[in-house]
C-alpha cells in the first residue's frame, strides 16, 4: 500500500464506519460489530504507519494531489503516530465496553456514528500539517463530542453540556483568531512553512500575541490552569463509555496541539512562552489534585485528576529539553491508557451497585475481587508506584526537571504524586473495602460486567506492558522528542526541501500578492 493511502486510512476507516452506522440506524447489532471492526482497523493501520515511518522517516502527503504549501498536508511523525495508536487502543476498548454500557435509546439516537465522527476529528487533528485544517478537525471533534455528552438528555447531562459547549465554542474562536492573525503575518497556514516564516517576522510582539491566543485556546481544550472548570462540570454526566473516551483522549488532543505549536512554531521567545507554560503546569497539578481531594463522586475525583495529570505533560513541554519531551510523550501514553481504564472501572462499579458516589459504593473487594485487582493496577500506576508505568513517566520528568535546574516544579510534581495516592486510597477504602454497618452480598457477576472486564483487563495489561517494556516505549518517545526538538526533518518531509535551501518564493506575499500568486 502506498504511503498516501496508509496515511489517510486512520481518517477513512472511521468515516466509512460513521456513514455505514448512520445508514444502519435500525440495526444496533450490526452497528456494534462494525464499530468494533472499524476501531480494530484503525489500530492496525496506525501500527502499519508506525512501521512505515520507522523505516522511511516522516511521511507527508497532500490532499487532492496539491503540493505544499498550496494543498492541505497530512503529516505523520512519531508523535502523531504514537497518539494515533493509543487513541485507537482506547477506541477498541470503548467499542467493547459500550456494548453492555450504552443503552438502546442512545444507540438509536446515533451513538455509534458520532463516536466514529469523533474519531475522525481526533485522528485528523493528530495528522494534519495545516493550522486551519487543525481548526476544522477540532470542530468535527467538538460537534461530535457535544452530541455525545448530551446524548440521552438527562437534566444533569444538559446542565454539564451547556458549560462544555459554550466554553469550547469560545476556545475555538480564540484559535480561529490566532489562525487569522498568523495568516496575516506570514501569508501561509502550512505548519512547516510557518516554522520557517515565523522567525523572519519583524513584529515579534504580534507573534507572541498569537502564541498567547493559541495557549488560551488549547489551554481550555487541555484543561490547563486556570481554564479547567468546564471539565469536572461535564465529564461525570454521560455514560461511562463516553466519559472514559473523553477523559482519555479529548484533553490530550489539546495537549498534542500545545506540544506541536510550542515546539514547531513558537520557539522564538522560549523564556517567556515556556516560562509561562511551566507556571501553568505547576498550578494545574496543584489545583487539580487539591480539588480532587474533597470530592466524593468516583468520576469527579477522576475528572480532577485528569487536570492534575495534564500539568505533568505540560511540565515536560515547558522544560523544553529533549529528556523533558520524552517524559511528556511517555506521560501522555501512560495517562491515556490508565485514565480511560479508571473511568471504565467506575462504570463497572456503577453497573454493579447503581451509583458513582463513594458514600454509597462499598464492599467491592469482597464481592468482586477481580475488579479490585483491575482497579489497583491503573490506580497505583496513576499515583506513580514503581514499577508501574506512572512511576517511569514521573521519573523521566523529575530527572529532566533536575537537569534543567527547575527544582521547584520537581518538588511540586512529587508532592502532587502523594496527594494522588491519597485520592486513590480514598476510593479504595470507600468503594472496595466493606461498609461498616452491613455486608454486601457477593452474588454472581452479571454478564454485562463480565463483558466490561474484557476491555478493562486489556487496558490493565497494556499498562503492565508499558511498565515492563518501558524501554521500547521510551525509545519511541525519544524518537518523537528528537523530531520535535529538531524540526528540520519535519519541514523537509512536508516541503520537500531543506530548511537552508528554502526561500520565500513559494510563499504568497500578501502585500504584493499580484506578483506572488500569479507567478505560479
Amino acid at each position: 500500500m502506498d504511503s498516501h493511502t496508509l496515511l489517510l486510512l486512520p481518517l477513512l476507516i472511521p468515516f466509512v464506519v460513521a456513514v455505514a452506522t448512520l445508514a444502519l440506524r435500525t440495526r444496533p447489532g450490526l452497528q456494534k460489530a462494525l464499530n468494533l471492526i472499524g476501531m480494530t482497523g484503525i489500530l492496525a493501520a496506525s501500527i502499519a504507519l508506525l512501521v512505515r515511518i520507522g523505516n522511511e522517516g516522516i511521511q507527508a502527503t497532500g490532499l487532492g494531489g496539491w503540493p505544499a504549501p498550496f494543498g492541505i498536508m497530512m503529516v505523520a511523525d512519531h508523535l502523531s503516530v504514537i497518539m494515533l495508536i493509543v487513541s485507537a487502543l482506547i477506541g477498541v476498548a470503548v467499542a467493547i465496553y459500550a456494548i453492555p454500557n450504552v443503552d438502546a435509546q442512545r444507540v438509536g439516537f446515533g451513538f455509534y456514528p458520532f463516536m466514529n465522527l469523533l474519531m475522525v476529528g481526533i485522528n485528523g487533528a493528530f495528522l494534519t500539517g495545516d493550522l486551519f485544517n487543525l481548526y476544522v478537525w477540532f470542530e468535527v471533534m467538538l460537534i461530535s463530542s457535544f452530541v455525545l455528552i448530551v446524548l440521552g438528555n438527562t437534566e444533569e447531562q444538559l446542565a454539564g453540556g451547556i458549560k462544555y459547549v459554550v466554553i469550547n465554542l469560545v476556545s475555538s474562536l480564540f484559535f480561529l483568531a490566532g489562525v487569522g492573525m498568523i495568516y496575516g503575518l506570514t501569508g501561509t497556514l502550512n505548519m512547516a512553512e510557518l516554522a520557517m516564516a515565523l522567525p523572519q517576522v519583524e513584529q515579534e510582539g504580534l507573534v507572541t500575541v498569537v502564541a498567547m491566543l493559541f495557549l488560551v485556546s488549547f489551554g481550555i481544550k487541555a484543561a490547563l490552569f486556570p481554564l479547567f472548570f468546564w471539565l469536572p462540570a461535564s465529564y461525570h454526566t454521560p455514560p461511562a463509555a463516553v466519559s472514559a473516551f473523553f477523559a482519555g483522549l479529548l484533553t490530550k488532543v489539546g495537549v498534542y496541539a500545545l506540544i506541536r505549536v510550542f515546539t514547531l512554531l513558537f520557539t522564538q521567545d522560549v523564556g517567556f512562552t515556556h516560562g509561562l507554560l511551566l507556571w501553568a503546569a505547576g498550578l494545574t497539578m496543584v489545583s487539580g489534585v487539591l480539588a480532587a481531594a474533597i470530592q466524593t463522586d468516583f468520576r469527579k475525583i477522576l475528572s480532577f485528576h485528569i487536570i492534575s495529570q495534564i500539568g505533568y505533560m505540560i511540565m515536560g513541554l515547558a522544560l523544553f529539553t529533549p529528556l523533558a519531551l520524552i517524559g511528556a510523550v511517555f506521560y501522555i501514553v501512560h495517562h491515556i491508557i490508565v485514565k480511560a481504564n479508571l473511568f471504565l472501572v467506575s462504570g463497572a462499579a456503577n453497573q454493579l451497585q447503581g451509583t458513582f458516589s463513594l458514600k454509597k459504593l462499598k464492599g467491592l473487594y469482597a464481592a468482586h475481587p477481580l475488579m479490585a485487582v483491575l482497579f489497583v493496577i491503573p490506580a497505583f500506576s496513576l499515583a506513580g508506584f514503581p514499577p508501574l508505568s506512572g512511576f517511569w513517566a514521573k521519573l523521566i520528568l523529575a530527572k529532566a526537571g533536575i537537569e534543567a535546574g527547575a527544582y521547584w516544579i520537581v518538588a511540586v510534581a512529587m508532592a502532587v504524586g502523594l496527594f494522588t495516592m491519597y485520592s486513590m486510597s480514598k476510593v479504595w477504602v470507600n468503594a472496595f473495602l466493606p461498609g461498616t454497618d452491613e455486608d454486601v452480598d457477593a452474588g454472581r457477576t452479571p454478564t454485562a460486567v463480565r463483558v466490561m472486564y474484557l476491555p478493562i483487563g486489556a487496558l490493565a495489561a497494556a499498562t503492565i506492558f508499558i511498565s515492563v517494556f518501558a524501554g521500547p516505549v521510551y525509545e519511541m518517545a525519544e524518537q518523537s522528542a528528537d523530531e520535535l526538538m529538531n524540526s528540520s526533518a519535519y519541514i523537509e518531509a512536508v516541503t520537500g526541501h531543506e530548511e537552508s535551501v528554502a526561500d520565500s518564493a513559494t510563499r504568497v506575499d500578501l502585500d504584493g500578492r499580484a506578483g506572488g500568486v500569479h507567478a505560479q
Partner: protein
Amino acid sequence: METLLAFVIGGLVAVSIYLLMRRDLVRKVIGVVILSNAINLLIFTVGRVTQGASPLIPSADKVPPEGIANPLSQALILTAIVIGFGMLSFALVLLYRTQQSTGTVDAEAFVDEGPDPST
C-alpha cells in the same frame, strides 16, 4: 478601510465579551455569534482588503487577473461561517432543551454545588 475595519472588529469583540459575561445563557450564545462574526471580519481584514475585484477567473483565461481580492481568506471565512452555523444551531437546540428540562436559562442555576459537606 483597514483602520475602520479594525475599529469595527474591536467594537464587535467588546460587545461579545460583554454579552459573554452575562448570566443569561441566551445572551451568552448571542455573544458567541457576535464574536464569531468579529473573527471572520478579522480574517477578512488580515487577508488584505481589495475593492471591487472578486476572485473569479474569466472563462477565457487560465489565471486570475491582476489585483483581485485574496480568495484564500474568503474560503477560510466561508468554512468558518458554515462551521459556526452548525455550532450555533446545535447550541440553540441544546439551550432550548435545557430550558424545557430545567425551566431556566440562568447560568447561576447550573453552578456546581460541590461535594456534600456532611461526611
